[in-house]
């Protein structure tokens, strides 16, 4: 199933205003696009596709943490593609022994591959969470993993709702940075 620019853009705009279902749907589609894109690129660069799923997840995390940089007046696919390409170049740079060789290609490229195979990365979420400051870790566990509402979490942790929101937001950003940095070594 191919996703059109119009569909993706519509889902993204809904997601920006907090539509959970639209976002879940969008990330599902984006995952398949990214997986196809990275496998294709890594094979072309004769690196093997083993790192593809790590890159998919790192990109999803970065996309999530910086989703407010999407300008609804602009098309969605180039935005997604720019992040994907940025993360790929970064990956090439930190993997020694290979020259970064990222061909300049058009946006059509990312929608050309759609890979539905389900996969697992080498990232360990629990270990990553352990590296976060405890207030971020707790907020993410309650709100994002256990699915408790912000209000419930606030009551349980003795915090204001806005403090919980801020902790989740900053924690997710820190997590994205951690994944990007962690994969460097």
């Amino acid at each position: 199933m191919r996703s059109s620019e119009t569909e993706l853009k519509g889902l993204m705009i809904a997601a920006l205003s907090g539509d959970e279902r639209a976002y879940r749907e969008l990330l599902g589609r984006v995952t398949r696009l990214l997986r196809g894109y990275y496998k294709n690129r890594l094979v072309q660069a004769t690196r093997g596709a083993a790192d593809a799923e790590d890159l998919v997840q790192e990109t999803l995390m970065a996309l999530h943490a910086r989703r407010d940089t999407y300008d609804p007046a602009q098309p969605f696919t180039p935005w997604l593609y720019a992040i994907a390409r940025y993360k790929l170049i970064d990956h090439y740079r930190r993997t020694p022994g290979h020259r970064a060789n990222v061909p300049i290609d058009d946006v059509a490229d990312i929608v050309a591959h759609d890979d539905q195979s389900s996969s697992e990365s080498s990232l360990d979420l629990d270990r990553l969470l352990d590296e976060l400051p405890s207030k971020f870790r707790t907020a993410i566990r309650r709100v994002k993993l256990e699915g408790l509402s912000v209000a419930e979490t606030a009551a349980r942790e003795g915090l204001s709702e806005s403090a919980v929101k801020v902790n989740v937001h900053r924690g997710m950003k820190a997590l994205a940075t951690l994944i990007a940095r962690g994969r460097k070594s």
Partner: protein
Amino acid sequence: MRTDDLVNMLSTNLDAVDWRGISRRILGGAALGAILALVVMMLLFGARTDVFDLRAWIFVGIKFAFAGAIIGLSLAYLLRIARPSGEKRVSLTLIALPFVLAFVVLAVSLAMAPPADWRTMIFGQHWLLCITCIPLNAIFPFAAIVFVMRQFGAPTHLAQAGALAGLAGGSISAVVYALHCTDDSLAFVALWYGLTIGLCAVVGALLGPRLLHW
């Protein structure tokens, strides 16, 4: 970690976000940096002594117009380049235009004057102060913009993003310096203002990949 689990985690209890925030913050950062540069400039050197003279404001106006055009352009482009794929909507030709114009002004004003005057036209009284003050004071707006970009932006062309931050910093600093500067020859403004602002952009481009990585 399974990718499905990650998607699940990311979309659970999704928060609404303000996509205009990054633009607002960049402009806020630039304004804050400008105020800092202004305060430092006024405390250290003060305004030109004839600041209340209407004639002086003609020259200040010329300097404002030159540096102001670059401020406007670089800020407009910064708002674009702060977002992924924004570099596609940045025109390097348009950015080069004020500098080409400055070069033409320099060439024409020198050509029209007798060579004996060139020295005074070019070096004025305080060219050294000019080329020191503008880059140094540019650090405030540059740092403020870089801070905002690091925290909230997602540029995908780091050298260009750094260059634009440098350009904004340099031109903001030039406007501030114009309040003090009494070297009013067109050749002086075109050469030293143009060079120092250009230098800030080059330094920004070199620092960009290091400072703006995310």
